[in-house]
Structure formats: structure tokens, C-alpha cells
């Protein structure tokens, strides 16, 4: 659906119309994702052979609990940020380029949904490139010239990552003669001891790690987030890295199987320390940033670290925590970025010093930011608390005290960087008192608060998220036995 909408947007050549189309398309995608999730939950895995060729020769689309869940996140975030994008984008980018933005947006969405849905590893690569190419475009569309260099850097890193994935896929194909994920998972154990497969594994993980901005391969991310238009940052924060983490899960558990990934390759021993260092280094980096958007970028790197920690615990609880955090972090980061979008709309900057005193002028916007920030810290009644809870529980289950303590300490770092913003916004006098700042328009506020309410709602009523995450985790771990 979004794939169809993309080119049409280009043809329409009209900002409003292309926006309308993009929004409709993504809402439809969202509802399709909802029904898919519902069906998967009640009927089990759905498969669909593209072009009529049966698997393993044809390209197969395969939907189980986990990717139905990720589909829901991706399409949901896109559906909510698009209404926000209209007003915000008109302000932030050149009006003549707006239709390009929506075209790229749709392509990016297609790519992300495609990666999630497909059951074929080469198809993953193709969709990955669709998503990446369109996201380079999205970032470069901002008015700030620095977005160009940010996009270029992202392009270089992204292409290297994608090529690594390509090499990994080639090596796998050499050894097994198939590209279908299910087929791969059956054939790999037979050849698991060869060096080729191990190389393939390494190439794939490094490639995906680059895309997921896994520490220490995260350098492209903060700049890319900081200079992209706000709505685009929100989309990326909620979706792009999440899909990469999903791929990581997919390859670890489905394609290679936990036994190979963790017993043979012992990747948990590498990932866990890296993720921990990532959480701390990125959080500390976030504390010293003077630009709030960039700060949130670093914070994203840290949060991805949490997901990887969850995954590398290799237990049902740990993976549940990882998947939960995937969902929850998408919600909170998107909420934070859109509320920053409101700030940009009114004061034209996200530098900390320029935000002095906005709390009083824009109570609703900053209220949203505070709630989102608290969610990031993990204060109860927000989604952040639920994922922290599960993560700690998973750590305790392994009797890893130090890990539980470190996770808690790191959330205090989040408290520090969020609170710096709050203090500036509420308790500093505006730098330029003469300037009149008013509240952001309702078209921006409504989507912002929708996201915030989702943050609170899923923090209180967790039956959906926890239930699905748990089932998905069991499914992933279950493929091992």
C-alpha cells in the first residue's frame, strides 16, 4: 500500500494532497497491521507466497507474533506522526520539496514494513536498501546545511552496513543453497561448524549492528537525528532502529538459532558488555549535549543498548524485556521528538539555552516532554517503567545482581539529562523576554498528546504489550528446542 502511494505522491506534486495520501496510506497500513496481529494471535503464523512461487524457491512473506508486533509499531508510529508532520514540515522545509519528503516517507515505510514482513533474507537486503535510501533523502531535506553532511555520513555507514549484510547472505547461500529463513534455520545446524557460516554470522551481525546504531557503531545516529526535520526524527526514532533490532532478533533466534548464536559464537558475551558500555557512554554523552535533539539521539543509542541487554540475556524473560522495550521506546522517543517538534515550530531551535523559559509559554508542549522524559527514566505508570521492570527481573533471574544495579544506575543518567531540559524550560528566565512565544497549534499538539497518552496507557494496561512480547519471546526461544 505505501509502495503504491509513494510514486503517486511524486506525481501529485502538491504538498497538501501528497500529505493526505500518505496519511491515508499509513493509517490503512496501521489497520492492516492491527488485523494481522489479531489474526496471528488467534490463528498462528500466516504465510503468503509472493508471485505464486511456493517457498523455498519463491519469495515468501511470513508473519508470526513478533513481526506482526513490529509491523504494528512501525505503521502505528508513522500513522501518528504524519498528521503531526503536516504543520511541522511546512515550517521546517522548503515548500517546493514537501512532496519529495512524503514520497520518501512512503518508500521508507514500505522498506521498513517489508523488512519486517519478509521471510527471505535477500528480500531483507532489498527492503533495507529501499528504507535506507529513502531515509538518507529524508534527512537531507532539512533546511540546515549540516543535515547534508549528516545524511552523507549516514549514507556511507549505511551502505557499508548493507554490503556487509550482502556478504553475509552470500556466504550463507554458498553453504546452504537457500535464502528462505525457515529453510536456512533447518540447514544451518548441519554446516554450523564451518568457518564460512561463522564468517557469515559475523558479517550479518556487524552489518545489522551498523544499522541499529549498536554501540560502538552509532556515530552516524546523533547527527542524523539532530539535523533531520522533527517529524522525520520522530519516525526514525520510533521505527528505523527498531526494525534493525528486530532483524537482530530474527537472525539470532530464527535463522541461526540460539544454540549457534550464543553457545557456538558466544555472541552474548560480546554483546552484553558492549551494550552496557553503550548505555553508559551514550547516556553520559547525552548529558553534555547542548542541543536537545542531539541529546535525544544519544539517548536512543543508550536505549538500544537496553534492548540488546535484554536479548543477550538469552532467556524468555530477557527477550520479552527486549521486545517490550522495542515497543515502549518507540512510543516514548517518538513522543519526545514530536514535542520537540512543537518547540522548533515556535522558537526555531532546540538549543538548550534557547529553550529557557518555554515551559511557561508552552505548557502543553513541555508537559508532554516532561511525561515522555519521565517515561524514559522509567517512572511508574509509564511504559518505561514496565520495560525496566522486566529487564531487572530478567537480570535477577540469571542472578546477575550487578546487571540489575547497573541498569538502575544508568536510568539515573537519563534522569539527569531529562532534568536539565526541564530546569531550563521551567525555571530559567527566557533569554529574550521581549519575544512572544505562544503555545503550539492544535494540529501539532493533538498527535503529541496522543503519543503521550499511549505512553501512559500502555504503562498502566500492559496486557496487550506484555502478552504479545511474551508470546513472541517464547516463539523465538522455542525454535531452539
Amino acid at each position: 500500500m505505501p509502495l503504491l502511494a509513494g510514486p503517486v505522491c511524486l506525481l501529485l506534486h502538491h504538498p497538501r494532497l501528497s500529505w493526505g495520501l500518505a496519511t491515508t496510506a499509513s493509517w490503512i497500513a496501521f489497520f492492516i497491521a492491527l488485523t494481522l496481529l489479531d489474526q496471528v494471535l488467534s490463528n498462528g503464523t500466516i504465510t503468503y507466497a509472493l508471485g505464486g512461487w511456493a517457498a523455498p524457491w519463491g519469495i515468501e512473506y511470513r508473519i508470526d507474533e513478533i513481526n506482526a508486533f513490529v509491523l504494528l509499531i512501525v505503521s502505528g508510529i508513522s500513522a501518528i506522526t504524519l498528521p503531526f508532520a503536516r504543520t511541522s514540515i511546512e515550517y521546517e522545509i522548503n515548500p517546493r520539496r514537501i512532496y519529495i519528503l512524503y514520497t520518501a516517507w512512503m518508500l521508507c515505510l514500505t522498506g521498513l514494513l517489508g523488512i519486517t514482513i519478509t521471510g527471505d533474507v535477500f528480500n531483507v537486503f532489498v527492503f533495507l536498501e529501499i528504507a535506507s535510501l529513502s531515509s538518507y533523502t529524508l534527512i537531507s531535506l532539512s533546511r540546515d546545511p549540516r543535515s547534508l553532511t549528516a545524511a552523507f555520513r549516514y549514507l556511507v555507514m549505511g551502505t557499508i552496513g548493507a554490503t556487509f549484510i550482502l556478504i553475509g547472505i552470500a556466504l550463507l547461500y554458498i553453504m546452504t543453497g537457500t535464502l528462505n529463513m525457515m529453510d536456512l534455520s533447518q540447514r544451518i545446524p548441519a554446516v554450523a561448524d564451518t568457518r564460512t557460516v561463522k564468517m557469515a554470522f559475523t558479517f550479518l551481525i556487524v552489518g545489522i549492528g551498523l544499522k541499529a546504531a549498536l554501540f560502538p557503531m552509532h556515530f552516524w545516529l546523533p547527527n542524523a537525528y539532530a539535523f533531520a526535520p522533527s517529524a522525520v526524527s520522530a519516525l526514525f526514532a520510533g521505527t528505523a532502529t527498531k526494525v534493525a533490532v528486530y532483524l537482530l532478533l530474527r537472525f539470532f533466534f530464527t535463522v541461526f538459532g540460539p544454540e549457534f548464536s550464543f553457545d557456538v559464537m558466544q555472541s552474548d558475551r560480546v554483546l552484553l558488555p558492549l551494550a552496557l558500555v553503550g548505555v553508559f557512554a551514550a547516556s553520559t554523552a547525552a548529558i553534555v549535549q547542548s542541543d536537545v535533539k542531539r541529546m535525544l539521539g544519544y539517548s536512543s543509542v543508550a536505549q538500544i543498548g537496553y534492548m540488546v541487554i535484554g536479548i543477550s540475556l538469552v532467556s524468555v524473560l530477557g527477550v520479552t524485556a527486549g521486545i517490550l522495550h522495542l515497543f515502549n521506546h518507540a512510543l516514548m522517543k517518538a513522543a519526545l521528538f514530536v514535542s520537540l517538534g512543537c518547540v522548533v515550530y515556535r522558537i526555531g531551535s532546540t538549543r538548550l539555552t534557547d529553550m529557557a523559559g518555554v515551559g511557561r509559554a508552552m505548557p502543553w508542549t513541555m508537559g508532554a516532554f516532561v511525561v515522555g522524559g519521565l517515561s524514559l527514566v522509567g517512572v511508574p505508570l509509564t511504559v518505561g517503567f514496565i520495560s525496566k521492570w522486566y529487564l531487572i527481573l530478567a537480570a535477577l533471574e540469571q542472578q546477575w545482581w550487578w546487571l540489575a544495579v547497573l541498569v538502575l544506575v544508568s536510568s539515573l543518567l537519563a534522569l539527569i539529562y531529562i532534568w536539565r531540559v526541564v530546569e531550563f524550560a521551567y525555571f530559567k528566565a527566557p533569554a529574550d523576554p521581549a519575544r512572544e512565544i505562544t503555545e503550539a497549534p492544535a494540529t501539532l499538539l493533538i498527535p503529541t498528546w496522543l503519543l503521550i497518552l499511549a505512553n501512559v496507557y500502555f504503562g498502566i494496561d500492559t496486557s496487550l504489550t506484555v502478552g504479545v512480547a511474551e508470546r513472541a519471546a517464547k516463539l523465538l526461544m522455542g525454535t531452539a528446542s
Partner: protein
Amino acid sequence: MNPAMAALLAVFLPLLGAVGIVLLDKHPNLRETVTLVTAAALFLVVYSLVPAVYSGHEPAAHLIELVPGLSLALRVEPLGLLFALIASGLWIVTSVYSIGYMRGNDESHQTRFYVCFAVALSATVGVAFAANMLTLFIFYELLTLSTYPLVAHKGTEEARRGGRVYLGLLLSTSIGFLLLAMVWTWYSAGTLDFVKGGILRDKLDPGLLPLLLALYLFGIGKAALMPFHRWLPAAMVAPTPVSALLHAVAVVKAGVFSVVKVTIYIFGTDLLRDTDATTFMMWIAAITLLAASLVAMTKDNLKARLAYSTVSQLAYVTLGAMLVNTTALIGAGMHIATHAFGKITLFFCAGAIYVATHKTEISDMNGLGRAMPITYGAMLIGALSIIGLPPLGGIWSKWYLAIGTLEAGQGIMLAVLLISSLLNVAYLLPIPIYGFFGKSSKQPNAAAINEAPLPIVIALVFTALGCMVLFFYPEPLYGLMALLFEGQ
């Protein structure tokens, strides 16, 4: 009214009040009426729960399930009811007082002030009525967050620094220790409900109990155990009504209340007594008690001195809880009440002096007592009550605490209590004494000083009388506390 409904209503009523206050932003008189009406209604609602609890019921309300097996739920038990009664009752008095104070000082952002106050009260009642540790934790955090704007109210550099220390210490201890302790408990016991006799028996290696207990006690940063007491003096930059209600009553008492609650309902007194897990924390409490008293003596700023005095008095309650016998726990529970009345009186007086003279240092206050006799009279009563002299309420709680130490066979702790009481005399009594008899040489315009505005005076007289009433009628307090241990 159905008691379960009343419990729910008690939590939501102040929130409703807060909404009303926001809506009436532009009409100060109506706004303050709403505050007072809400406060009165809250007290009535809480009071309506008393008969049910006395007859042995524990009204419970179930709100929502967060994670399978873990829900937000309320249950009213005697200790919580006692705490809610004190908090809601003193809210009325404080509201009257703060109207006088805020207007007298022309403070800014008054609406924000009242709103945060109401939200804080809602959180306090939530803490009081929590049916499990998770609910308690949530309201505890809400209390911290809602009082932060109150602490940083003035918006000056100093106020913000105070606010930062306040928030940083309270949130970091609660997330760093308390949350960990909670998850640990949940992991070992499979529940977080408050159950009489505790939930940890046979669930955890006894050797680990002291560690878990330390996590809980340090995690409840609001109980101000050293070395996590720094937030309390820092929070004294807040306007005085905030210091009074929040730092003599709601916030700090939420801390020690949680300590008592954890002792009784999570660990269970029998378990703690059997395993001697409390020794280490008991010493920490004793050290806090003495050290804070000593620090208080060196402080010249009146509010800072009161703050350290609070730290020391809170340690009494923690100490009582750590002695884990019925008498000491009754003493601890009563001390929550008697100290609340005594300390709020002292804070009210400090505020009254500030409104009338804008003085904050004790050494500048010589001779003020002659100009403000009512204020200083009330201050004397409050000080005596905290020291624990008859005919004031403070004696009862100290009495039970002292007997508790003897019952536990901790002679040293008895000595600690007595020494600390002497220190109380040394740092509290001089203030009113110099106020009455000191030379007022430094005040050329002494004649210009009058009593503080009427609402302030009414409030502080009321709480001072409260101290006296508690001496003559301690039965309701004792009765409630004794209910806790019935059948054990």
C-alpha cells in the same frame, strides 16, 4: 458511604480539587475556597473510614492490574488510616496558614503552588492506603515529583539547586535501591502485597535479609537516614507552608511510614526478630539520630535547624521500627503523629516570624518574643512537645519507644534516646528563651513588628493546641496502633 469507595475517593478528591484550582486560576478567592473545601472534604472522607477500621474491617479497592499478579490496589489498615488522618487534618490547617503566608509575602505562581499541594496530598493518601509495595512506590514517586515544583518554587538559583538535590537524591535512592529491593522481593516471594506477618519467611536466605532491609531503608530516601538526608535541609528553600506540611508531615512521614510498613508487612516482625537482621540498620538510625541533633546545634538558620531536628526525629521512628517489638512499633507509629504536630507548629512559627520580620537567622531574633507573644508561645509548646515533656503529646511516643528499647534489651539505644532528648533541649529551647528574654539591641524598629497575619496565627495556635490535646487524649492514637498487633 461504602468504605472502599471512600478510600478511592480520598485519593481522587485532592486531584479533583487540583483541577478546580487550575480552572479558577484568575479568581484567587474562589481558588482558595476550593483548596479549603477540598481539604475539609478530604478530612471528612478519611474520618468516615475510622469506624470501619475500628470494627476490624480493612476496606479494599482494586484499581487496575499492571503486570499479571501486580496491581494498583488500595487497602485501609490502621497505620495507614492514622497517617492519612494526620496528613489530611493538617492540610486544612496548612491551607489556612498558606493563604496568609502566600498573600503576606506576595509570592508568585500561587496557582501552581496550590495545585502541586493538592496533588501531593493525593499522593500522600495514596501512600497511606497502598495495598501493596508497587502502589506505595508509585504514589511515593508521584509525591516526589509533585513536591519538586514546590521546593523550587522561588525559581532563584538557590531554589533550583535545592530542588535539584531534592529530586536527585529522592529519585536516585528510590530508583536505585527501592526499586531493586522491590523487584528482588517480587522475584523471591512472588508477591508484593502487604500481608500481616510478612511475605518473606522461608523465601529468602536469612543471610541476605539485612542486605534487603538496607536496600529498602536507604531506598526510602524520604526517611532521611544518613547519608541520604541531604535533601531535607536542601528542600528548606521552599516557602514555609511547604516546609511545614511536606517536610514536617507529608513527605518525611511518608518515608518513615513506608519504613514501618515494610517492617511489619513485607518482612514481618517475627522474621526480623528471629534473624537479627535489623542490627545494622538500628545502628545507622542511632547514628543519624545523634549526628543530626549535633548538626542542628550548629545551625543558625532557623529552618535549617528545624530540618536537622526533623532528620533526627525521623530516625526515632526508624529506630522504633528496627527494634521490632510491639511497644516500640506503637511508639514509632505514635511518633509519626506527635512529631507531626510539634514540628508543624515550629515551622508555622518560623514562617510567621519570616512574614512579620523577614528574618531567618536565629541570632537576629533576640527579643522578638515580646513583639510576637502568641507565635513564641506556640513555639515553646512545639519545642517542649518535641523534646518530650509533659503536658504535651511528645512524651507518649518517646515513652513507648523507651520501653521498647528495654523490651528489646538494647540498653545502649535507651541511652541514645535520652542523650538525644537532652540535645533537643539544647537546640530547641534557646530559640523561644532568647526570643522572650534576649536583648533586642539589634532592632532599632522593634516597635514596628507585630504579630503575623491572622490566618497564620490561627493555624499555629491550632497546632499548638493539638500538641496539648495529644497529651490528654492519646487513646485514639494508641488504639489505632494497638489494632495493628491484634491477634499476633
